[in-house]
């Protein structure tokens, strides 16, 4: 492989001199990380800092009868041993509900369990000591007496009258329920030539960020301020929540987020142990640090997916899809996670199923129930992998049943590229998608006919390869419709402040955050382009609630589309301000001037008039020489929020080509392709790497990852030796291609790209496996992850 240097692409309407839109420039902050000089929260140490370790419930559901802490309190290095009841005096509990998910209910959750522990791994006591090791030593000396309560673990029976109700105050174990009916579903099924029904099962899995969750909280009674170093995706959201539950004003809390060792939606939630750490700092008046170890991560980082979906599709002989029907059941642990709730994933499955297709007949039911396992909540591509696997699984099973090619059935049913704007049966609104162009691009890129021919030839030699596809839509650039309207204090707008320093360099402060996606690079590219400097003149600051504009952070593929647009507009505004200064200095009309490569030039001729360094020198140090009454404003702020559309939907299609060893059940991934349309592409390399990383996360879900629980609610594989993640040797190279349909909701036209890979990969792996096994008469596999054992079972070999 040759690493090709970046070169400017063909100029577009957005291009100006110094245009970096559409260029694969390297991220500005990488050398720090390749040299091991990053600063992750786990690296942070402060004077007088103490470490907390938690005693965690070994039971899935148990009453806490007593906690004996005397022995622990005298253990070497111990500073404090604190129970849930004691911490409740410092911090109020929270309830994870949103009003727009009608009927969603949950119970109050405390930072440390009070009276009852509701899942294996819930903290029941905190030990604060000089070192983590000493804190863990003392945890061994805390004696907790438990009285076992019935563990509710099976969602199928969670709503039965004889099942124990986890929170008596709620009346039952139902968290949320939604029903949807569109078109004439029964009539459509009755008029179908073929109907396929099957049940899809999605394993409970988790994010396994390489850096576990980490937080350092520092309450300073002198300042009456709390400073929190946290590996979070949403600093302003956390500032608001810390303040609210400690009884502080938001301006008394500063959240600082430096380098974050992976997030993927794991680090955008309220975690009881992190809230406890903050409360302990307030209580003890000194910095307290908590870093989850790997076992704690497995039993407390949010889990996701874990759904059982009964799906049904009808088709006519000519391949027309007549109707979709789904019944979703999911168990989300004992609490709806605060503040985003645990109803969103099932709700998304209802919203997204059937989404790429023009079929108007759709019925859906989703039930979300409580259980005594770790909590579930939003993880990368929330709901998408499930909805896409159900939809695309049904489409390919239907195609097989009527003997139609899987790409052909899609051509006949995908929403036409000229049909936009339009909506889905579930009520989603689409501005502009490109399913057919993406499909045609994929067909060519993968040489579909050639791959089919090879597959057929190899089958005759007893080699079983499969080709699977997945068309998909992706929710990006969420407006206030996602959380704000439901009462959550999670902002959908974002801001950027851009200033010219005294030597002519540009500093950006942005409310979005960086966890490796390249948000800072994209912000720099936007401002360098719209203002008129080279990239090396731009510095980006994120992750500091004291100093950045109020913003939502980075989640739901919003950083480029929303944060990027704010930065683009701020750069333009500052250019206007700077040209006003230049006009005053040069006695020229600002509109006749431009900024190119850090120099103010005549717009028409390009003649250099004044460097930014000189302009800054005069504006900052000799403002007395500017015309009377003229005030230079060398800092500009702009905000942006999508208004025309609730979400900027993107679309794409993936394909997988794999081979199955029918003796061992092992799957070898040969090729993987993804065509994606995220609108204007600001940095092609970063988009492709989001796709590739996302695809591999989706492959993990399809083939390896599952949090295994027994019927007592004990997690059986909470370590990285038993919970398998994708490693390099099993993964294929991934080929990416693009269609570009910009959103007209912003000047840049960029949509998000972070979820696409994860959304589509499990479906196309599933379809490829079933395509490979079909000639062997295997029953279609629909129960993820598709382990070798399940494949051998489908083949009747075990």
């Amino acid at each position, binding site marked *: *492989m*040759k*690493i090709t240097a970046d070169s400017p692409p063909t100029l577009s309407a957005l291009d100006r001199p110094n245009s970096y839109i559409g260029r694969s420039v*390297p*991220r500005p902050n*990488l*050398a*720090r*990380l*390749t*040299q*091991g*000089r*990053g*600063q*992750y929260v*786990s*690296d942070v140490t402060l004077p007088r800092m103490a470490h907390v370790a938690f005693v965690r419930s070994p039971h899935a559901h148990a009453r806490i009868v007593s906690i004996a802490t005397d022995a622990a309190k005298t253990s070497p*290095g111990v500073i404090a041993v604190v129970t849930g009841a004691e911490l409740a005096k410092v911090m109020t509990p929270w309830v994870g509900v949103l009003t727009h998910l009608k009927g969603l209910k949950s119970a109050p959750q405390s930072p440390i369990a009070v009276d009852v522990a509701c899942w294996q791994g819930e903290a029941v006591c905190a030990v604060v000591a000089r070192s983590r*090791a*000493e804190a863990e030593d003392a945890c061994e000396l805390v004696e907790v007496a438990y009285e076992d309560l019935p563990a509710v673990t099976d969602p199928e029976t969670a709503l039965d009258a004889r099942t124990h109700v986890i929170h008596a105050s709620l009346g039952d174990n139902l968290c949320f329920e939604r029903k949807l009916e569109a078109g004439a579903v029964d009539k459509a099924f009755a008029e179908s030539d073929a109907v396929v029904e099957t049940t899809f099962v999605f394993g409970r899995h988790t*994010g*396994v*960020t*390489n*850096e*576990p969750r980490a937080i350092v909280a520092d309450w300073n009674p002198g300042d009456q301020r709390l400073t929190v170093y946290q590996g979070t995706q949403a600093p302003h959201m956390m500032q608001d929540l810390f303040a609210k539950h400690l009884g502080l004003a938001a301006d008394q809390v500063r959240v600082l987020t430096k*380098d*974050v*060792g*992976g*997030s*993927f939606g794991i680090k955008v939630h309220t975690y009881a142990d992190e809230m406890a750490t903050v409360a302990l700092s307030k209580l003890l008046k000194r910095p307290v640090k908590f*870093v989850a170890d*790997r076992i704690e991560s497995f039993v407390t980082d949010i889990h996701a997916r874990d759904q059982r979906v009964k799906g049904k599709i009808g088709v006519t002989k000519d391949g027309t899809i007549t109707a979709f029907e789904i019944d979703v059941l999911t168990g989300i642990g004992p609490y709806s996670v605060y503040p985003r709730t645990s109803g969103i994933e099932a709700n998304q499955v209802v919203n997204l199923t059937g989404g790429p297709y023009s079929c108007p007949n759709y019925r859906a039911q989703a039930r979300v129930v409580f259980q005594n396992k770790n909590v579930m909540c939003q993880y990368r591509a929330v709901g998408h992998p499930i909805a896409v696997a159900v939809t695309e699984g049904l489409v390919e099973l239907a195609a097989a049943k009527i003997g139609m090619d899987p790409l052909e059935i899609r051509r006949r049913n995908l929403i036409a590229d000229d049909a936009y704007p339009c909506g889905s049966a579930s009520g989603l609104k689409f501005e502009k998608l490109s399913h057919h162009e993406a499909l045609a691009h994929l067909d060519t890129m993968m040489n579909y006919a050639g791959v089919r021919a090879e597959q057929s030839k190899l089958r005759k030699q007893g080699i079983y390869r499969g080709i699977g596809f997945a068309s998909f839509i992706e929710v990006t650039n969420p407006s206030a419709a996602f959380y704000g309207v439901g009462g959550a204090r999670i902002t959908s707008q974002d801001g950027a402040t851009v200033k010219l320093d005294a030597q002519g360099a540009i500093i950006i402060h942005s409310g979005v955050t960086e*966890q*490796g*996606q*390249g948000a800072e690079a994209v912000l720099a590219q936007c401002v360098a382009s719209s203002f008129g400097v080279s990239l090396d003149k731009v510095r980006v600051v994120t992750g500091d609630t004291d100093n950045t504009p109020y913003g939502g952070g980075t989640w739901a593929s919003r950083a480029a589309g929303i944060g990027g647009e704010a930065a683009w507009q701020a750069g333009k505004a500052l250019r206007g301000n700077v040209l006003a200064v230049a006009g005053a200095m040069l006695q020229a009309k600002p509109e006749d001037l431009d900024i190119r490569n850090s120099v103010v030039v005549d717009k028409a001729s390009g003649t250099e008039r004044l460097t930014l360094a000189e302009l800054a020198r005069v504006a900052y140090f000799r403002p007395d020489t500017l015309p009377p009454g003229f005030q230079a404003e060398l800092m500009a702020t702009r905000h942006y929020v999508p208004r025309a559309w609730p979400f900027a939907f993107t679309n794409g299609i993936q394909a997988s080509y794999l081979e199955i060893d029918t003796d061992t059940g092992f799957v070898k991934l040969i090729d993987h392709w993804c065509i994606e349309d995220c609108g204007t592409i600001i940095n092609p*390399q*970063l988009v492709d*790497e989001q796709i*590739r*990383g*996302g*695809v*591999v*996360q989706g492959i993990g879900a399809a083939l390896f990852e599952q949090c295994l629980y027994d019927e007592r609610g004990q997690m059986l594989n909470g*370590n*990285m*030796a038993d919970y398998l*993640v*994708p*490693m*390099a*040797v099993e*993964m294929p*190279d*991934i080929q990416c291609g693009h269609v570009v349909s910009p959103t007209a909701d912003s000047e840049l036209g960029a949509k998000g790209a972070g979820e696409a*890979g994860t959304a589509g990969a499990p479906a196309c792996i599933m379809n490829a496996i079933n395509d490979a096994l079909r000639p062997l008469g295997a029953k279609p596999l629909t129960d993820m992850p598709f382990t070798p054992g399940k494949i051998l079972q489908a083949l009747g070999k075990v």
Partner: protein
Amino acid sequence: MSDLGIDISLTVNGEQVSERVEPRQTLVDFLRDNLGLTGSHVGCEHGVCGACTVRVDGAIVRGCLMLAVQCAGSQVETIEGLSDSGEVADLQAAFEQRNALQCGFCTPGMIATAQDLLAGGGVPSRDEIREHISGNYCRCTGYHAIVDAVEAVALQRAGAAK
């Protein structure tokens, strides 16, 4: 803890170090907590993720599976040392150019492992690169870009060697 302490002397990134450590302290905790070398990361603490990969007497090891006391008298090299000496400068440049890292948490260990492969000379195949880095977990990139970067450096070094 002091009564349980054991005095050790070793060389870390070329510097002589003498410290008192607890017998249970892992090498990576020693590097991070005692010496402030936070470039070696703690990901799983049971030898699977490879984020703590460092070099001891020329061989790459898991900093979480080796105790500090086992390193008495050894030469230990971390990402800080490999960076400062310039030994992995070409790998670092290729990782940066190819965006072969996102969050960067796995990167110091990944670069140490890649350097271990390339130090053997020759140009490994993509499959061989994948095999060699398969003890290093990366959740962000999907590995494709990392394989590209390592392959590019292998070719570059082979070209330079001709």
